[in-house]
């Protein structure tokens, strides 16, 4: 994902998370373990007195009450076939039940949700079978039991151009007939009975598909109800949602949500789903209602939360508010590790940074501590020393917080002598760049991106480079410049990534594998296309088992550091705030956002 665009929304080809359950032949309880540290846990501790979602209690909440949520960001999509951002997911996983989902304290081990057990993967890795629970019902006005056909329709409509699911092609593209799918039945999805769904693939990519079943696209959609809304371009199903989770958007008798339970830019209301049965779900669902107020200034709503009652903020608080919470309301602050990466993409394909020693020199010279201070300092960041981030398996094997022991990585505040050493190795005898190139540096406007970009620009100038420095809106930075290889941007100081799944492939593959360089919408911003790295990724992709995968991808991470394929500067930790009388439970897998299915009032 590009965390800076959405608070959290990610996509990557990942194959390991659900596979853990299958490959170790564990049963439901093992996959659904709800206590103890998550397997991917980095062990990063929150400051004393500050909460962390890794350790928050998921049981013992008080039932009842209304939680008020103050968000300055609006939802992007309410339709499970389209939802793809952190704020969307906050409501999505309280109202919809995909086949699998994560419990709050883990980003590595999914739990069967609508499914009744782990996915069964055939030995040739071309078939995935999932059995679904009995007794799960749609909310009014549909009011009937969910069947496997509803899951099939939910996935099939992802290929409908009126829905245009963003990750259908990546994760479900291997289904038989998926390449020609336009929203109708897909030959590769079979429902032999009302509680079994079977996925037939044309290539052995069952692991990737099984992993994707944790995403909202696998949440059931009743065809007889949704088809008429899907006939519109774009679909209007998001305005007439039905739910399977413990909550539903408030709606009228016809199921209309727009203008009733959701007023764009103003408010949303989640109420209990009368069709939901606690016996079928692992969520305790303590709250009776969630009132979401949309809009306002983060500095104001942050104070309203800290000084208010039964209130949380569920998008990123203002930096000043985080500091205020830390100093005066520490117990109301939660810091979630593993919220993604921030690094500088340098053009590996052309120009001065095609030389590995110039890249190393830049890494050595950069004051990463200063850049992190612009983001709020140690409270919300760790100095980034490699590319697999905390909570993702492989983080420790790749070097943990300290990172690989190479000299250009050893000085977080920068070291001019080491930078000069690598410039000399690159052929610049004076230790500074003396070539004629003018680097094109394209950063993002806004804080802290602009401040970070300024530090990067100054560092480049200190190394002797001339630069053409520009700041543009972040979406323009990605779509017009850094994501378009033909532009040959030399330095993109404000890129970042977070994975959908707790699997290292999701962090490294799309961003550093040469085969993923696309002419537009490219996420391998540095155009890294190293044959050794590509080959190692090919070998690591089909591996099974968390440890094996972590080890293989950690080795790739170390290789990326050796090659200085990009210049990392900040592992993100995401802050979240709550009122003093809220027992919030945050989701590690959703950058610590408060989980409405577990949060309760005191």
């Amino acid at each position: 994902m590009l965390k800076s665009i959405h608070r959290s929304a990610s996509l990557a080809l990942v194959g390991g998370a659900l596979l853990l359950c299958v490959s170790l032949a564990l049963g439901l309880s093992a996959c659904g373990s709800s206590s103890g540290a998550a397997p991917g846990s980095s062990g990063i501790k929150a400051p004393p007195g500050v909460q962390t979602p890794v350790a928050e209690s998921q049981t013992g909440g008080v039932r009842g009450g209304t939680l008020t949520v103050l968000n300055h960001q609006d939802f992007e999509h309410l339709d499970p076939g389209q939802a793809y951002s952190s704020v969307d997911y906050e409501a999505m996983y309280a109202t919809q039940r995909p086949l699998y989902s994560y419990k709050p304290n883990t980003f590595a081990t999914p739990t069967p949700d609508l499914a009744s057990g782990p996915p069964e993967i055939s030995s040739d890795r071309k078939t995935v079978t999932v059995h679904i629970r009995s007794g799960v019902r749609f909310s009014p006005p549909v009011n009937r039991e969910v069947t496997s056909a509803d899951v099939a329709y939910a996935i099939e409509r992802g290929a409908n151009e009126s829905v245009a699911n963003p990750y259908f092609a990546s994760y479900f593209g291997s289904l038989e007939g998926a390449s020609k799918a336009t929203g109708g039945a897909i030959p590769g999805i079979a429902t032999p009975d009302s509680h079994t769904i079977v996925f037939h693939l044309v290539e052995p990519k069952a692991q990737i598909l099984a992993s994707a079943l944790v995403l909202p696209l696998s949440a059931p959609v009743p065809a007889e109800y949704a088809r008429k809304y899907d006939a519109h371009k774009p679909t209007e199903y998001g305005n007439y949602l039905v739910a399977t989770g413990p909550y539903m958007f408030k709606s009228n008798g016809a199921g209309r949500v727009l203008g009733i339970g959701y007023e764009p830019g103003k408010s949303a209301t989640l109420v209990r789903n009368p069709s939901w049965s606690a016996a079928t779900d692992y969520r305790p669902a303590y709250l009776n209602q969630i009132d979401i107020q949309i809009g306002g200034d983060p500095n104001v709503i942050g104070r309203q939360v800290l000084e208010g009652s039964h209130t949380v903020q569920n998008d990123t608080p203002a930096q000043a508010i985080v500091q205020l919470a830390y100093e005066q309301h520490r117990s109301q602050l939660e810091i979630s590790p593993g919220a993604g990466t921030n690094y500088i993409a340098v053009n590996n394909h052309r120009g001065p940074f095609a030389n590995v020693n110039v890249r190393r020199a830049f890494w050595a010279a950069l004051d990463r501590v200063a850049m992190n201070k612009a983001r709020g300092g140690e409270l919300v960041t760790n100095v980034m020393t490699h590319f697999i981030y905390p909570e993702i398996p492989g983080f420790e094997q790749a070097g943990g917080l300290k990172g690989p022991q190479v000299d250009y990585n050893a000085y977080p505040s920068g070291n001019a002598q080491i930078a000069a050493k690598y410039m000399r190795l690159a052929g610049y005898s004076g230790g500074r760049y003396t070539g004629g190139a003018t680097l094109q540096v394209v950063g993002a406007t806004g804080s802290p991106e602009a401040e970070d970009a300024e530090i990067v620009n100054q560092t480049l100038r200190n190394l002797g480079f001339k630069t053409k420095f520009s700041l543009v809106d972040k979406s323009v930075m990605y779509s017009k410049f850094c994501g378009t290889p033909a532009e040959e941007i030399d330095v993109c100081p404000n890129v970042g990534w977070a994975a959908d799944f707790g699997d290292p492939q999701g962090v490294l593959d799309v961003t550093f594998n040469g085969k993923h360089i696309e002419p537009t919408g490219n996420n391998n911003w540095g155009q890294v296309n190293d044959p050794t790295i590509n080959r190692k990724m090919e070998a690591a992709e089909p591996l099974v088992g968390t440890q094996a995968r972590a080890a293989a991808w950690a080795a790739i991470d170390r290789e990326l550091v050796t090659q200085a394929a990009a210049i990392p500067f900040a592992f993100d930790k995401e802050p979240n705030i709550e009122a003093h009388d809220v027992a919030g439970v945050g989701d590690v897998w959703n950058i610590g956002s408060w989980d409405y299915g577990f949060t309760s009032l005191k």
Partner: protein
Amino acid sequence: MTGYVVRRVLWGALLLILVSALTFVLFRILPTADPARLRAGHNTSPKVIAEIRAGLGLNKPLLTQFWLYMKGLFLHGDLGYSYYSGASVKSLIFDRLPATLSLTVGSAVIWMAIGLPIGIVSALRRRSRTDRTAMGAALLFISAPEYWLGLIVLYLFAADIGQIKVFPGAGSYAGMTADPQKWVTSLILPWLVLAAGFAAVYARLMRGSLIETMGADYIRTARAKGLPERQVVLRHGVRAAITPILTIFALDVGVLLGGAVLIETVFDIPGIGRLNYDAITHADFPIIQGTVLLAALFIIVANIAVDIAYAYLDPRVRYS
């Protein structure tokens, strides 16, 4: 007079078409975000983006898109549908308009009620202590950014986060028909903050304009005729001095009706300004076009209204 009004209305309609065209072209040609890509999310295949583009009708030639938009707008009053929520832009605008109207009209009344008398008193007591104090204070309020001022008054007087808990704070706005009392109390702080800067500007404008007017020959004549000073000032001085201020007033009100983004954001008032701001961040063209068109409409209407008012206020103005 009627002919003049008809001509102005026709020119106004033409201007609206030009504004529509300009907005349409600006947001599609200048480097801005691609709505299909924004809607799709990242690492999405070109096929999906193409599908979304087709679904939104963005794959059609620009001229066709423009023609369809203008046809819908002028023949059916249709402003299109939001790329994100799928909601009708017209209904979104009508939903947000009362909040913006409430904010603008209330603050306009306050700033005129405060600014003009202060300007008149300052002009009549030039270089007095009152004049210097008033103009000094005006300078202070002009210099204070309304965003900052909004935060300060919230931290001081808001019932939830203020030090002296007097007025409802941010996010407390209620519609006039839903809860009239809450409507008034929730808008007191936003009205005052928005009016503060404008009142200061209008006080200075009024002062300058009235000083100039009071030096005119016809004022001297009025005094020579033995008219009471009060009558000289109000009937002959202020009446003439206020006409240039009305022109600016019309523009200011028109602009604010198009949305007061900062005040709406700080006080969490769901008005047109925030709708427009959110639309720009999502490249939601139909909403951007709708709100820009609305702002242009307000400015045009306000200007026509002021031009008509001139004829009644200033005896020297006659339309033929």
